[in-house]
């Protein structure tokens, strides 16, 4: 299926008529945005995995039941489901705090972040894991602006409004985030050309 030509509303319409492939296209189109949106709130990769699954399952249930009435607006709709589920979790977590390790990480959150698809790409995957860990180590406001700009494709103006700061503050946070990441990459000898794209 050509996912460039088909709009969200067309894909939704096809899915409701029974075309499974169209949902796969929607899932691939929005999986990263939904996941990042949730992660920004819950700040735990494994809870974000679970809530991403819950989000899409809730979307499927609504689409299957015929209650979906936001044709053409799939993206804000599915992101709103994700946001609400993440907020619900956050509120529950406040009532039932999780056990944390000495370094502050969740006691259950010790597995890999994502699955490496092929052994041949292990070197690249290791580098990517390191980069993700560098992002995790950034101060929260710098990490947040990276996630919003890179993975949610928000403009700096949108980020400023969403985080209730001036656009210059948002830009400044991004600049420091990039400088800090660069420093960490240098310290760990991660070079863009030689490791990400090995020859």
């Amino acid at each position, binding site marked *: 299926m050509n996912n460039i030509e088909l709009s969200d509303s067309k894909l939704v319409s096809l899915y409701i*008529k*029974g075309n*499974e492939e169209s*949902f*796969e296209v929607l*899932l691939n189109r929005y*999986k*990263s945005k939904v*996941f*990042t949106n949730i*992660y920004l709130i819950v700040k735990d990769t494994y809870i*974000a*995995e679970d809530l*991403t*699954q819950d989000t*899409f*399952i809730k979307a*499927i*249930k609504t689409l*299957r039941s015929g209650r979906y009435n936001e044709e053409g607006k799939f993206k804000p709709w599915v992101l709103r489901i994700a946001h609400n589920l993440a907020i619900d979790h956050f509120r529950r977590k406040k009532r039932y705090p999780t056990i944390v390790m000495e370094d502050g990480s969740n006691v259950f959150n010790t597995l890999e972040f*994502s*699955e490496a*698809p092929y052994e041949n790409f292990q070197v*690249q995957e290791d580098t*990517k894991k390191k*980069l*993700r860990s560098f*992002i995790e180590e950034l101060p929260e406001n710098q990490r947040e602006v*990276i*996630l919003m*700009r*890179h*993975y949610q494709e928000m*403009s*700096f103006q949108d980020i400023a409004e969403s985080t209730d700061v001036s656009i*210059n503050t948002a*830009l*400044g946070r*991004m*600049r420091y985030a*990039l*400088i800090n*990441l*660069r420093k960490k*990459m240098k310290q760990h000898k*991660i070079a*863009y050309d030689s490791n*990400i794209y090995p020859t």
Partner: protein
Amino acid sequence: MIQTFTQLDLIRFIYNETTTEQNRDIELALLCNNELMEEYKSLKSTVATLSEVSYTPSNSTLENILNYSKSTNLHTAH
């Protein structure tokens, strides 16, 4: 040459959030100022590296979603 933009404008330039006019000024300044060019290259390569990092759910989560979808498809004979 008087520099009419800030380091924050350089960030906006890297992320394609500057106007055509601002782009011309910044491109000219980059050609005339080695220090600025080095900072630009450094920031740009970090941004390019970030694009290689994905925040996506695992394959097993995606499979679970797709399997759930298939299991609820009334149009398909099970």
